[in-house]
């Protein structure tokens, strides 16, 4: 048997809340772990972290955009600004995995692009592979971002968006930023796809290119303000250059402004509760399919359950999961109950 040393979740939570880096790392490892015992402890960890914490703390920021737009360089420039103003930053950088039939591995290269050359205790970067999940953001990202927000002022989630599948990032960030590449077909695709609904802030990077960057910015500006958007938010479009370090300060100010807008309008906690619920539903659906959801009454009933325990939906999730599992047991053969747990590795070796 493997000797997997799983930490005590309640102790871990208090260490995380004190900002101990080793505990943060161990917590993220636990949330990523699919062993049955690890899953139980993850739920306890999240419950302990949620306990007594306001849903109005911190700032979760999603950054997405096509490959090559310079997201990592821009994130690095933003981090410099936050660190200069004394705020701590946690980063989840998501890169694509290769296809499962090609081994499912991943090269995670964002860390090298984001980090500073000097040692910084106020910055924590975890790279993740998206593990072939359709939405582009690994299922682990939501609880991980929640954990990071327990000890860092700012949490940035960076993902590659190819233009049509960034829906997930809308279910994570309080503020979503789209980084556009000037004169690139990706942006046009993006505008056409209707996902223009999602971002709150737009950055057109590489503005040192001049005219193409201005053209892209004006195309986005024309499309961004739509009637069905939230009132009172102006959806800024910023010209920036991460490598030349131009336009960063004004761009950066929009993040604080957007967070204040959400808080003043009373939207922040509502948004996060909605994100948590979406995560629970997605997780259950990924594991059990539509049929599984129907077994416990479908979306309506799930929504009702989640509404009962708004501030700790992780616990609610585990309860529903066990419920579905027990229903499966009575409907199906036990052996086909789930693809997520791997109690036996011998079969594949």
């Amino acid at each position, binding site marked *: *048997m*493997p*000797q*997997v040393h799983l930490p005590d979740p309640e102790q871990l939570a208090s260490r995380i809340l004190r900002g101990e*880096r*080793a505990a943060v*790392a*161990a917590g*993220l*490892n636990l949330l*990523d*772990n*699919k*062993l049955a015992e*690890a899953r139980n402890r993850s739920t306890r960890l999240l419950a302990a972290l949620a306990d007594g914490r306001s849903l109005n703390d911190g700032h979760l920021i999603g950054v997405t955009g096509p490959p*090559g737009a310079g997201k990592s*360089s821009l994130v690095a420039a933003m981090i410099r600004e936050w660190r200069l103003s004394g705020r701590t930053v946690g980063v989840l950088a998501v*890169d694509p*995995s*290769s296809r499962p039939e*090609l*081994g*499912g*591995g*991943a*090269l*995670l*290269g*964002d*860390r*090298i*692009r984001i*980090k500073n*050359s000097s*040692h910084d205790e106020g910055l*924590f*970067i*975890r*790279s993740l*592979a998206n*593990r072939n999940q359709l939405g582009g953001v690994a299922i682990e990202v939501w609880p991980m971002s929640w954990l990071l927000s327990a000890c860092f002022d700012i949490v940035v989630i960076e993902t590659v968006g190819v233009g049509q599948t960034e829906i997930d990032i809308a279910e994570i960030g309080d503020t979503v930023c789209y980084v556009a590449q000037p004169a690139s077909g990706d942006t046009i695709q993006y505008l056409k796809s209707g996902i223009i609904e999602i971002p709150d802030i737009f950055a057109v990077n590489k503005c040192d290119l001049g005219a193409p960057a201005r053209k892209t910015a004006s195309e986005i500006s024309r499309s961004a303000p739509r009637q069905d958007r939230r009132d009172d938010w102006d959806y800024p479009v910023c010209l920036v250059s991460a*490598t030349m370090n131009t336009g960063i300060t004004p761009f950066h100010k929009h993040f604080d402004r957007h967070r204040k807008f959400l808080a003043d309008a009373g939207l922040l906690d509502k948004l996060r509760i909605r994100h948590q619920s979406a995560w629970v539903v997605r997780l259950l659906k990924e594991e059990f399919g539509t049929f599984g959801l129907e077994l416990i009454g479908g979306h309506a009933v799930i929504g009702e359950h989640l509404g009962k325990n708004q501030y700790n939906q992780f616990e609610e999730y585990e309860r529903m999961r066990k419920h579905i599992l027990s229903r499966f047991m009575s409907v199906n053969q036990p052996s086909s109950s789930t693809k997520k747990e*791997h109690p036996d*590795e011998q079969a*594949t*070796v």
Partner: protein
Amino acid sequence: MVAARKNRDQPWLMRTYSGHSSAKASNALYRTNLAKGQTGLSVAFDLPTQTGYDADSPLARGEVGKVGVPISHIEDMDQLFDQIPLDQMNTSMTINATAAWLLSLYIGLAQRRGIDPKKLSGTTQNDIIKEYLSRGTYIYPPGPSMRLIADTITYTVKHVPKWNPTNVCSYHLQEAGASPVQELAYALCTAMAVLDRVKASGEIKPDEFPQVVERISFFVNAGIRFVEECCKLRAFGEMWDELTLARYKVEDPKLRRFRYGVQVNSLGLTEPQPENNVQRIVLEMLAVVLSKRARARAIQLPAWNEAMGLPRPWDQQWALRMQQVMAFETDLLEYADILDGSPVIAAKVSELIEGARREIENVEAQGGIIAAIESGYIKRELVGSHMNRLRAIESGDLKIIGVNCFQETAESPLTGGSDGAIMKTNPAAEREQIERLQAHRKSRNGDEVGAALQGLTDAAKSGDNIMPSSIRCAVAGVTTGEWGDSLRKVFGEFRPPTGIDIAIDSREVLGKRDQVTDLRARVASTGNAVGRPLKLLVGKPGLDGHSNGAEQVAVKARDVGFEVVYDGIRLTPQQIAQAAQEEGVHMVGLSILSGSHMELVESVLQELRLRDLANVPVIVGGIVPREDAEKLTALGVKAVYTPKDFNLNAIMEDMVNVIRESNGLARLASLH
């Protein structure tokens, strides 16, 4: 017995790439080598000098005097050339990001000795473009780097006219995996980028431009396929002639000559049966001397034991004697070009030229070499070529004697000695260099240093040529770290734009598919057993920028299913341990080729222990002598891979087992 004919051609310049420990020790070595008949010097600098750090910088720890000589200020330079007349010497310096600085120290020293800089002859490598692709000793972003190259060219053309200010390097492209066609194409694209940049600077009058073209020289590699390599050099000559006429309108054919120096292939030298490297080196030299029209101007040969560690003086002497036998004993230099008129050679040359032309058009269509580097195109092409080579070695399609065939060997009397047949650098060198540096800082005139550095900063900002203010700095006693830092503040530091997010068609590069499929199953099942996919951190501690090995391991690990955090080069042990913690990896892979493995690995292990990560297994790859490998294992390193471990599938298999053991799982039986 026929006496040698009188009208023999002049032989090429004979050098040996050397330097270690300190300026004093290197000077002694140089004078011995010159006494043995070497006709030029080739200076190897240590990594702090190459990357613009002083010996007492935290990043320099363990690296001082390792891969070359440490030069921190003009007194070091003076000691390095003690009793060597600068006006009679031809000195080649393998220096890139700090080339303008080392050249300034050399010129400053000449001025101090009352020698007219117009009499100095030699070469600064100064090809920073290839540093982004292969060697990794860049400091500044491409824009300022191109400017530094252009500044040294325009300065030397006017003030040090016998100097070769830049040596466009196809050498390192081949080490990074380039095929002959890629070597031709990318080297010529680099030369065009440099010349275009000089032209655009407006500092050179149009009628003086042919002199600039004439000063561009090349540094070329020659591999074991010596017929093809010889054709490559003929192709280089033809293409350069054509390009300089068509693009730069150089009318005088003498100024269009393709001038190059050579170090023959180090990539193909083997650790098993190292004596076979002797015949490899000789055959590789044949490629660059055989054809008179395409003969090298200067040659330096590696030593037979380079894959094992630092060569001793006797090993270097053997390499020099190979050149002398070729030049003075054989009849090679008595003939005109012996390949002219051969239809086989002509056809091969045309084939290479056509291929290179297509690739040049391809790069130009992407906006030139700098754009193609920034987009990651060239790196992808090179890594793809290199992986194909490795696959061919693994499958046995590419035969390497003593490695993947004819492995049986009697015990070698060459490697049996108590020194392990390699040289050890002086362990006190770092401390002594630091003491010397700190004493120097106290002895110089602080006001002069401050004023000189201000002048340097002003020139960097204003766009004035960097050389006059750098020479002033050299004479004032400024240090290498101060020069490097002043420009870092103005130019910023380069960060690799794309890391190695290389999308290679996996089927093409994976090696034997059945083994890979098995490996993927093992990686997946071990991940399941520990609860999450196996995650690996790959990084290079210290200043050594040779990242090819680390990148191949990273790409291969990705292909068999690892989630790989590639953290790049120039990392402190503290940064590596912090990354291991933040990323939650199951294994840390370190790659070190500079010889600093003992100090650096020990520090990484210590930093991991400080973070309660002693249970995360560490593996090491690089040029590590066996004795050191045993010491590293005793310190707690789980595996050491050296050039003899060429089979990446076997390394992957071993890595999975190391992770299994560290997690209390049973090892899996061998796949072979």
